């Protein structure tokens, strides 16, 4: 069979098998487009998961969308009917689990909507942080932050706060493994981890989450474990940064217009020397203890 024919044959098969999906709809696929038509109502589907274990609850939870209800399956999956455009789901955990009731906001439910993983747990905390542009370090307003079934938007300061986030003080093995998803117009969507932060007084502060502009993204520079800025910036370009070990020069970096230098060296004791024509800065002694340790050493030319 010629490749193009095989491809087409596969597409036809999908039409047949697509009907075996989650129910209520048909899927039609051509070589490059997929159209899903759902009939018979609006449904939210996803998983209810336990932040303590990383898996489903030991007993089924009840998921409600208005007057509609559904029970979670053994793996935590649920599919609940909803009024068209519904934007909230309520999860009632069984009394034996004892996590109480949880309310989640969702995208409007029209047709079948995957609402993702709804995490519940023995504790509820706030998760907060700030979204910044990695190139400018400026806050990004209007970025959407999703975590553990919670969703929020950054304010003009780039800050966000997600409330009622599932948590357990017993272990962070699962909590840190849940991705913090950050998306914003003209930025590459990125995932972050809450690690190594833990809840203090009911608050998990994850600090700055840097996202990269689509239009201004650049390949990364070279790897480094000693770096710094040369001040003043106006005098920085052309500065030669020398790295010496036992008096022998082992690295050299010529500073560009961004005023920064980068050195990549094995663990050890080093001397950094800065020179730009008649200008120089005092030598700096540094000790790198581990290869994955990153030191910042700024210098001011005089």
């Amino acid at each position: 069979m010629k490749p193009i024919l095989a491809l087409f044959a596969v597409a036809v098969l999908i039409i047949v098998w697509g009907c075996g999906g989650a129910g209520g709809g048909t899927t039609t696929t051509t070589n490059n487009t997929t159209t899903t038509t759902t009939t018979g109502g609006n449904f939210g589907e996803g998983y209810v998961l336990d932040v303590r274990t990383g898996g489903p609850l030991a007993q089924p939870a009840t998921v409600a969308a208005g007057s509609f209800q559904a029970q979670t399956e053994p793996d935590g999956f649920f599919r609940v009917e909803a009024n068209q455009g519904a934007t909230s789901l309520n999860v009632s955990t069984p009394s034996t689990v004892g996590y109480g009731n949880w309310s989640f906001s969702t995208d409007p439910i029209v047709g079948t909507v995957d609402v993702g993983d709804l995490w519940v747990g023995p504790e509820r905390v706030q998760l907060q942080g700030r979204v910044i542009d990695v190139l400018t370090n400026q806050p990004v307003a209007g970025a959407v932050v999703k975590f553990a079934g919670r969703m929020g938007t950054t304010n003009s300061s780039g800050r966000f706060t997600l409330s009622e986030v599932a948590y357990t003080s017993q272990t962070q093995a699962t909590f840190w493994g849940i991705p913090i998803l950050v998306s914003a117009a003209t930025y590459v969507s990125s995932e972050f981890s809450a690690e190594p932060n833990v809840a203090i007084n009911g608050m998990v502060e994850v600090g700055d989450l840097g996202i990269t502009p689509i239009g201004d993204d650049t390949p990364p520079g070279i790897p480094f474990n000693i770096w710094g800025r040369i001040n003043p910036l106006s005098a920085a370009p052309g500065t030669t940064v020398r790295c010496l070990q036992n008096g022998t020069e082992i690295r050299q970096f010529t500073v560009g217009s961004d005023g920064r230098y980068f050195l990549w060296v094995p663990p050890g004791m080093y001397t950094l020397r800065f020179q730009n024509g008649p200008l120089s800065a005092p030598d700096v002694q540094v000790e790198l203890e581990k290869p994955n340790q990153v030191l910042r050493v700024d210098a001011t030319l005089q």
Partner: protein
Amino acid sequence: MRRSLRFLAPAVLVLAGAVSFGQSNVLEVEIGSARGGDFSAADAAVREFNKDLARLSRNYRLTNQAAGLTSDRIQFSMPSVVWLTQNGKRLAPPEPSGPRNGAPLVLQFDNSGSRAFPAEYRQVLESVFNTAQTTLTAIFGPPSVGGVVRVLNFDADIGDRDAVAGGYYVPNNGMGQPEIRFPVYNAPETAAVNFIHCLLLAYLGPSGYEYDALSEGLVRATTIRVSRIPAALPAQFNNPASRETIELVLANSYDVGAFYDWNNQRALGGRRFIAPNLRNVPLPPGGSLGGIFLLRYQMAGSAWQKVLVEYPSFPAEINSRAYLNPAIRTDIGAFLTAAQASIDAIGGSGSTVEGLPFADWFARQYILQTYDTLGLKLLMRVIPLTSELGPNEFSVFIIEGNYFETRAGGNELLLSGTAFPIFWEPSFNRVFPSTQDDRMTISGAYGAVVPTFPNLFSGSNYRMAVDLPVADRLARVYLPVGAIARGSSAKVNNFYGTVIGAENVPGGSISVRLTYGSGQNVTIPVQNGAFGERIDSEVYNLPGRTEIRVIRTVSGVETTLLTRRVNKALGALGVDLKVDANRVFQLVDLPLGLSMIGVPVQTLSSSPSELLNVPVSQLLVARYNAARLQYDLWPDSGAFERGFGYFVRMPARQTVNLPGTVDPRIPVSVALRPGWNMVSVPNVQNTSLGNITVTVGTAFPVSFSDAIGSSLGADFFEFQQDGANPDTGSMIPANSFQAGRGYFVRCLSSTGATLTFFPSGMVGNRAGPPPPVAPEPEPGFYRFLGEFRVTRAKTSVSAQFGQHSAGTMGFDPRLDSQLPPGLGGLQASFGAGNPQFRQVVGMKDKPDFIFKIEGLHNGKPYQLRYTSLVSKAPPIQLFPISGGQPIILQPGQEITLMANGTTAQFIVRAASGGTR
């Protein structure tokens, strides 16, 4: 003073009364200053440990039940060694109460009291020991320390009977005595198997191996072997029902059975099978295993079972050496030397395992890699469904994803995320079995789909390649679809597998010939890369040596393409046969200083230090992590992964050999995460862009050029070392992927993407590579596209500028392309803000292009050449921003610039009648 046991976060595990898994599979229980008689803290720790394992076992059993693999009658076990520690140090090994090495164990049971077993149960255990002892000693060697071992009933303490998972061994109970603490199992067969396991741990005594892969692996393999020798167990178990129960116990927690090849994945490796931080984390009640440690235990048992198939007395040989030389128990080099000496002692000089010298064989078993590697790990596990298939179900597999990150100290972070499995039929068209299998939700490190694969080839078997990309990790397995069990037939095959790299010719056929027992042969045709057969032979069913050949037959003439020896376990055998897969790829003359390398092979070693031949103290390896927007510096960069690019800093010029395996003559994939990715060709062939497809989520694959601007950035880059300073360099745009080189590729899709590299020729139904998709013309047209190239000595960089009907003054990922900030090396760019490799504006825009050169060496001459790339570029004027007369350049002209600083900047303006 009694200290209560506390289960605390990993960071504070060292507190009194806490438990941890230290080195090897040893459960360490800190008893603080209490040296005396109250060891309830230790008991409580182990109870909790066993409870976790029991829950795991129940879940695992449910999974296997769903797969039709096991019954619900079987209890699991995970006996372990428990060391009591005081102030962080192990209590001294027991003073032997009898003769040391060579003396037998003497079991001592309590006759009464809470630690006494029911008489009947005790009788079973005593009977097991008395019957098995000779066999244990024959296979495993005599105990390292003979004498009294107490055997105590801890069933009541463990509490919830359903939660009881197994017994454990205590080398020193705090009073100088070793103890086996054992529960009461419902099934005597379960008790027998698990008691053998505990006895073997007692045989090792205080002389156990430092790594789980060795200690636990050898014990489990020996348990498998002993349990299957009818004479080694009391006569009461010598009946079909008991034998079946024993086999099920072994299948559940000692042996991975037919699926060794599929599970032989790098993620298994490490010093410890259970991550220290997960010791006290409850296991999820769903299908998740809460990590992959049970699979590790099974794989370790299976790996060593392969050795025992050829050398049944291997454990005795290696143990006798290890008891005399402690270095063998802690140093892998010493262990490998001793292991080769052991098989030589049994089988004669030059003995091999599965046809390989011991060290080579050992290196190919990822479960036996004791080197802790950090970073993301992804393991794909597959289980074929062989029963209760619907009549129209052609082939069904459970596909599990296990996704975690290994951190310092062997801790594991259970990750969550979404994966979009890609199913490739033999010609590498993407197949969508059913909508619910297009997406795998991973939570707490675990996700699963259960696709039903279609009958694509009129009833013939076929090979399905399954790629599971998660973030920038990708796991692949090859499944023999239709070759194991079909809903239309009651027949379940017991020899099956896939073949890749076997090049057929017109009129030829490919087959697999299995030789087993005393030379019995069976030849099975390979259909679309897969084969399966039922061999109704008791000899075949037994564990034993086999030889498997892949044969091409043309006009009755056979050519052997591959010969592989496999020591099979009991029952079925599944194999993943790769013709011409072993390669040593050379990174020729890797220069002193910075290089960006690519890894085209699946390296056998997990140690970059070993592969690069650079001491750990000097090792500099880094891989960019787009999720963290910074480099992962070794050791965080982990083991070298096929298809990844890395920066390395070599201390001297050197040719580096990368021994490993490839997937020959077949497309191989690499996963991209959003942002910049360091990748390479995951194969030893250079690959042009026309032979690369890009897959995003549940969409059909598109060509590389079609993906530009939607899921991929406009350009991808390679690193060029600076001619004058080897620790700096430039990013230059690339136009193809060379094997062994690393590249920066930018992924624009928020869900990531998968690059699939097609070889220049393919086998199977495909006559050649996928039809190269001609780059789709940009919508619109260029007025011109020009290039400036700056050259000095061997260093050359370039940047482009132009006008296009679809261009804008802003950034358009289909036309414009970015460059990195200064790396300290020579770099050319356009743009006033962030540097661009290519800046294209609209027809009506009238910009002054800003052209910048960085990384110049003061006082040195540089050649600047102006070239017309598309349409006829106009003559231009070059205005130095620092002042001075403009230079007029025609396309094709070259001038010499003398650097008077490290940076030069120009305004580029079309001469009259040009761009303005």
